[in-house]
Every structure is written in C-alpha cells, then in structure tokens.
C-alpha cells in the first residue's frame, strides 16, 4: 500500500513547527514506516475484536471524599510566565477596535 502524507497538514494538526529540512526527512520516513505498519491489516480480520487495554478495567470509582488540591503557588511554580496568580499567555482573542 503506497502511503501519501500531507506533512504540512499533519504538522498543523499536531501544532508542530517544522523546518524545511525536517519536512523533507519526515516526508521520506513516515510513508516507509506506515507501509510497514499497515501490514497489521493482513491479520486483523473483521471478527477479531479490538483491545484497548490488555487487562480491562471498567467503572473504577473512589470514595467521594474531599482532598486538598495543589496550592496555587505550586501550580504556578513551573509557568514560563505568570501574572496576578494566573498563567500569562500571548493574546488568544483579538481586541475590538
């Protein structure tokens, strides 16, 4: 199965800024890896159910007891930028002019 990948599109989905050299290299490598990976289709018949977790767990509950959470100062301690007890980021929404 020949695999064609729009590297720029996938990089945009992944929020990954790539250099031209990286785009060229991944454009060569990813199809080769995916062609090999696609061999899973040779044995994955319709009557084989998928497994997401090898040891299935469902409905894992805990007691609804309040516990202390991470204090604000600790939550902010690793932030690249902070201001007034919040994470500071570049503008997300344009201002009305």
């Amino acid at each position: 199965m020949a695999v064609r990948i729009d590297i720029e599109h996938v990089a945009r989905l992944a929020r990954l800024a790539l250099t031209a050299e990286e785009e060229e290299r991944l454009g060569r490598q990813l199809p080769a890896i995916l062609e090999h990976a696609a061999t899973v289709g040779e044995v994955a018949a319709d009557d084989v159910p998928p497994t997401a977790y090898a040891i299935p767990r469902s409905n894992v509950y805990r007691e609804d007891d309040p516990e202390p959470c991470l204090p604000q100062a600790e939550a902010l301690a690793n932030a690249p930028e902070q201001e007034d007890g919040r994470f500071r980021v570049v503008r997300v929404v344009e201002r009305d002019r």
Partner: protein
Amino acid sequence: VSSPELCDLTGSHLAAELAGGGVSATEVVESSLRRIESVDGSVGAFLTRTPEVALERAAELDAHRSTGAPQHPVAGIPLALKDVLSTMGIRTTCGSRILETYVPPFDCTAWARLSGRGSALLGKTNCDEFAMGSSNENSAFGPVRNPWDLERVPGGSSGGSAAAVAAGEVVWALGTDTGGSVRQPASLSGVVGLKPTYGLVSRYGLIAFASSLDTVGTLTRDVRDAAVLLEAIAGKDPRDATSLDAEVPDYLAGLDRGVGGLRVGVIAEAFGEGVEPDVRDSVRSAVDRLDALGAEVGEASLPHAAYTLPAYYLIAPSEASSNLARYDGVRYGYRAEGASDSVEMMARTRGEGFGPEVKRRIMLGTYALSAGYYEAYYGQAQKVRTLMIRDYEAAFERFDVLVSPTSPTTAFRIGEKVDDPMAMYLNDIFTIPANLAGVPAISVPCGLDAAGLPIGLQFTAPVLGEPVLFRAASALERDLGLVLRPPLLAGV
C-alpha cells in the same frame, strides 16, 4: 583487577550487612558517591545528582539503627530513578529540552513508596527523550555510554539506569518499559531487567508516553534484588485507575525452588533471521542448562508476534501524540519567545523543544488518528493486541514460562543505527509482545558474545506470573554463576 566495593554488592547482601551493623548506611552511600565521581564522567548515566538527599537519608537511618529498630530491605540502598519518574523538588526532564527546568510538585507513587521505606536516592538518570528509543541516543542531553565498551550504546530508553547499575554507581534503579525500555538496556548492559504485569506498579507520576503500555520496572544486579524492589513498589494505588487490585505476594518465598518440573516453552519464532549467532547460541545453551536442571523444555509458538512490531508503531505513537499535547508552553516547560499569537507560540515551542524522534512519533500518531485513517491504522493495530493475547493464552496452557533472546543483538556502536528508524525499531522485536498483552517478562544475563559484550535471555509469564518468572530466572542465574564486571571497573 580491583576488588569489589560496597557499591558493587547486591541490595540483599547490603541489607544483611546493614542489619548486622557491619556497615553504616552512610558508608554505603559514600561508596556509591565515590564510584559516581570516578566513572560517571565517562559513562554519563546521570542527568541530576542528589548526593545531599542520599547522605541526609543515610544519616537518618544510621541514627535510627542505633535504637535497634528493624529497617526495610530497601533502606539505605543506593537507588537511581529514570528521569521520566516525577520527584518532588528534584528536576525531572524526560531527557527533553521542553522539560529542562521542570521541577515536579509531587512524587510518583513508586518513589514515594521507596522513599517511605528509607531508600537512598543518588540521582535521576539519562534516557531517550520521553522514553522513545532503544539506544539512549535520543536524549537532548547527550548519549549514555555502555560500561562494557564506552564506544557502544547501553540500550534504551532506560539506558542511564541500566548503565548506572552495571557500573556500580548505584545498587539498583527504576526504569520504565513501554516496548522493552527496561529489558533491552538490561540485556545490553549485563544486568537484570524486570517489566512487571501492566498495572501491578502504579503509573502515577510516571510522565506518560503510551498509557496503555507504560510500566515501571526494575534494573538490578540479580534476580533476588528484582523481587525485593518489586515488592516494595507494587500494589493498588487509588491515584492510578489502571492499577490492579491484586494482593502483592511474598516474591522471595518461591525464589529458590528451582526449575524441576517447570514447563519451559522456547519461542520458535525468536531464533530466526536478524538474531546474532552468538546471541542464539548463548540462549540455546542456557535452555540446555534449564533442561539439565529438570525443566520440561518444549517448543512454543507465538504466530502473531511478528505483527506486534507494526502494531506497536501505530499504538504507541498514537497515544504519545495525545499525551504529549500537554506540552504547549503555557503551564510548565519551555516556551518559544516572540510569537504573535497562541497557535504560533505552541507550534514553535514544540518545534524547538522536542527532538527528532519525538517529532517523528507525534507526526506518526497524529496521522494514524486523523479522520479517514483511524480504522485502517489504530483500529487494526488494536486487533493485533487481541491476537497476541490469544497467542499467549494458548502458549501458557502448555507452558509455565516462555524463553527467547531479549534483544536480537548485543550492544551496538553509538551512531550505528541513528539514521535508520526502522533498523532501530527492530531492537524491540522480542520485547514488544509482552507490552501489548500486558504480561510480565524479565531479562537475565546468560553470557557474553565473542567481543565480550553481555547477552540477555528473556522469560515471559502469564498476567501476575512474577513469582514463576523469579523462580526460573533465579535458577538459571545460580546455575550459570556469571561474574559480570565491566572492564571499565578494572581501573577504579
């Protein structure tokens, strides 16, 4: 050849010495510190050293011991942790620029349990970035060198942990194993590497790579130490919803039972093309020893094992692309400067902060999960998991444990496979099946190749079959009686 020092002994041996009062915890920790000082400049196992943490712990233990109170077998034993395991107040980088300055506000459960029992932390070890790799060459902070030959890789991704144990820098270490990242470096570095049953050890605070496959494992100098260390970290943790609600048995109880009557299945598919002749011969002759010791040896087959490598390279990158979405430059880690909007800030942060292998896997996973491709790739790969689980179920009806080489090769040269991702991925061909099926497996040294490099043999057992793994591995280890001392240590 210089004589072994305290840091060269096993954890069980040291615990007995400590209990008998023959040595102090401070002497043990100082022995480790001296070894790190003399060899880590050439090995490069550590990203962060924590001598003050270990010495303070040792002093507490020594003060306590004078009161005669018994201490846990891990108390005072020098430990290293792979740098994907969160340590409160101690930098945890995942071998990545994007987390170069990250200091976790909490401990992972595995370390919290060891710390609570008196374990002495010497530092955080180098690894492939976000545990993605089989050679430790994908670390943003440089390679780790194999103590058996400094021009060769120690394996990966837990390469720093394996090398530190092999070189006597610590007595034991924790690593993580998603597709072989504890067992393969153990094999290449001549130590014992255990990947427990999925969910037996809490993943809380293990920085996620592929959540359905990630496990915390042990790197030790013998099988007994693996049993001791596992017992200290295993068990249900309410902070990890996938952790198993299973009772943790006494792993030492059956350790010395031997292999008489044990049904040992040799995996037929694991001795074919691509396996180095010395590796094949060494594992075969170890199997002959098991036979001589009274095991019932037969041939086992895992017909779908060949499909687990392609399945793994869909499942692991898919889960990674989702897990690594959190590194967006907002709450922690690196942030690119000067972006004009948030999308550009995130894309440039990730473009500058991640290395080539992590980018490759994020791209693979993003593609495999994207609209129109999900069923053909991720959906099909999950079916292979079902087939692999069935293969193991069939094999374990006939056998108690399965045997194969851990890795098709011994340690390869630094740089040898770095430009060929497909060749690199083949390192994990015999270790990946256990991760996909969630079953436990252990790598134990079984000999040296013609160049004097260690060879590892892998035992695999059914879910929660750790006791039989330890029993088989320990019997082989006793019978072979290998003395594994890397040439590097001749001069220290």
